[in-house]
């Protein structure tokens, strides 16, 4: 039927929803980032790019980027590698695979805020299990390691409250919490590799497990890896709950754990500075957008085999 408007009824609902719950809020956040708006005010002043200038000049935000990137570049490689390793090990099991899957996936399902409290106890400098365990090693060959000897001499690190250790400790918890998720994605990827490719590799003379991995497993996991890396990046950029649980005031020792999400929360919600909060959000959106586009490009260009 030429001239029919029926198509509007098909695409209309999707477009309306997308505009209402995605595009409009992004637009509003973008607009707010150029103002000094506070929640409850009836009006706001246009401040131009002042908010953005602040983000890229003030030391607080320098620390914010530092903490975020430290966290991201520790957590992403480790969760991806550990996820792949765990998936390969579990995939090679004939029994108990489901048990291990459940164990490694538990941290993903657990509420991180509750787990953070447990970790806080574990890392406690005097009553925590971690330093208590380390102290037991004092007086043994472990003291040959300078760092260990220094710990025995004085005290082992205050993991969560020492600014040299805090971000790495939080990153460690992020790895612990995150790699089970990647493991599940990799397991799905592994099951979709056709068995005959391994048969072909055997016939072609692949002798060792490493050769089979190089020839079949790793390339066939290419699309999974691109997805896993992207989702890990986005998830690590989004880290918030551990930071909020450990350091409800101000982002850790000397703001060394002042990650982006926490900065948005602190500025926009706690201090009611919507303008600067929106500006950080837009920068954050930029990162995530860049990663997503990179992923699409990689999937289409490099790993789309069929």
């Amino acid at each position, binding site marked *: 039927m030429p001239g029919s408007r029926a198509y509007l009824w098909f695409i209309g609902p999707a477009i309306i929803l997308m505009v209402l719950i995605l595009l409009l809020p992004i637009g509003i956040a973008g607009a707010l980032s150029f103002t000094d708006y506070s929640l409850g005010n009836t009006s706001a002043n246009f401040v131009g790019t002042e908010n953005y200038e602040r983000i890229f000049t003030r030391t607080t935000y320098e620390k914010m980027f530092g903490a975020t990137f430290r966290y991201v570049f520790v957590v992403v490689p480790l969760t991806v590698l550990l996820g792949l390793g765990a998936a390969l090990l579990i995939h090679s099991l004939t029994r108990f695979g489901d048990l291990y899957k459940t164990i490694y996936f538990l941290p993903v399902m657990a509420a991180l805020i509750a787990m953070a409290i447990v970790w806080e106890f574990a890392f406690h400098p005097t009553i925590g299990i971690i330093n208590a365990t380390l102290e037991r090693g004092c007086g043994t060959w472990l003291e040959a390691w300078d760092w260990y000897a220094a710990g025995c001499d004085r005290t082992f690190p205050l993991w969560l409250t020492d600014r040299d250790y805090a971000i790495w400790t939080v990153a460690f918890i992020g790895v612990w919490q995150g790699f089970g998720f990647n493991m599940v994605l990799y397991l799905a990827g592994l099951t979709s590799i056709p068995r005959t490719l391994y048969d072909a590799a055997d016939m072609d*003379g692949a002798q060792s497990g490493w*050769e089979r991995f190089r020839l079949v497993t790793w390339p066939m996991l290419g699309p999974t890896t691109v997805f896993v890396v992207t989702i890990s990046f986005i998830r690590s950029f989004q880290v918030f709950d551990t930071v909020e649980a450990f350091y409800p005031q101000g982002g850790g020792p000397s703001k060394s754990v002042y990650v982006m999400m926490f900065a948005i929360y602190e500025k926009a919600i706690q201090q009611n500075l919507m303008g600067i909060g929106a500006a950080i959000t837009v920068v954050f959106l930029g990162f995530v957008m860049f990663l997503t586009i990179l992923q699409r490009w990689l999937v289409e260009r490099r790993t789309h085999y069929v």
Partner: protein
Amino acid sequence: MSKIVLSGIGKSFGDTPVLRGIDLTVEAGQFVTLVGPSGCGKSTLLRILAGLEAADTGTVMIGDADVTRTRPADRNLAMVFQSYALYPHLTVAENMMTPLKLRDLGLAGRLPVVGPIFARAEHLRLKKQVNRTAATLKIEALLDRKPGQLSGGQRQRAALGRAMVRNPVAFLMDEPLSNLDAALRVHMRAELSELHRRLQTTFVYVTHDQAEALTMSDQMAVMMNGQILQYGRPAHVYSAPASLEVAKFVGSPAINILPGEINGTGGLSVMGKALAPDTQLARQPVSVGIRPEHLTLDPDGPFKGVIRHRENLGSDIFLHVQIAGLERPVILRSHPKVLAGTGLEEEVTFSALVDEVHVFGADGLRLRVARPSLVEVA
């Protein structure tokens, strides 16, 4: 060139026996087909020969070497898979290069990027080998493409190329044509036979399509329920099936099975009509197999039936004739010209070429009939 001997091969998956004591000898340079319905164990047998699966019992010998416990990589066999199993991330040339690299290059030469620099001469030699094989298969134009960009037939050729490139002891093929369309399949049949003649290498070919077995092989083994029912030249398997099951499986359209009996004097009769006076067999009920081409329309023939269906193939016409007292219609072959003017539901009479009937006992095994005494009974 070495002959392959499988002896006493048994294999079970859990409680289900898949192969029950298979003995098979493949002479060097022969084209041997393992044919049977799905689930008969033919693919498992091939995988045991390849080394991809371990047999529970029995031995695999290639030449004078016992390879039962040898890894697939060390048996120097090549396999073409039903799904082709080409590495999708590699080009056709790289796919064909893979078996050469894994076998002939050291660790350094296999490294990506720097490998070709370390072992330059080697790489050039292997490349030449790939190009030579590609020329044989006429796939030079496809060398730089990835499997995803190829059609089914081209993928088939690339998979063949990967198998051929390193001159294996034997080619193992697991239903390589079943993913192709009908016309291409017939074409590839001829091409594979031609390839076998040229390479003079042993081919072990698994298929469920009896037509492929009949048209291509030097020897065919008909398998059912984990056993080889008959092993011999295709013409012989077709013209003298060892059992009722083989007779039913080989040939298309399928052979007609009619109930019959041997009477006290050794005379063979089918559905009460005497066919042969003296078969020198004891009195017993038998099944008589008659192929469609051995039934002829004959106004004076002993059998009578109604045409239920006709399949005109142009060169031949197959009539499905319902005989009173039989469940399934009998199929007979004729020429379209002979049948001009004969319509459905018409009654026809026909006779059988008595020299060509197959007689099977109650246990399903072929009964040796004293041929010379058979005379056509009109």
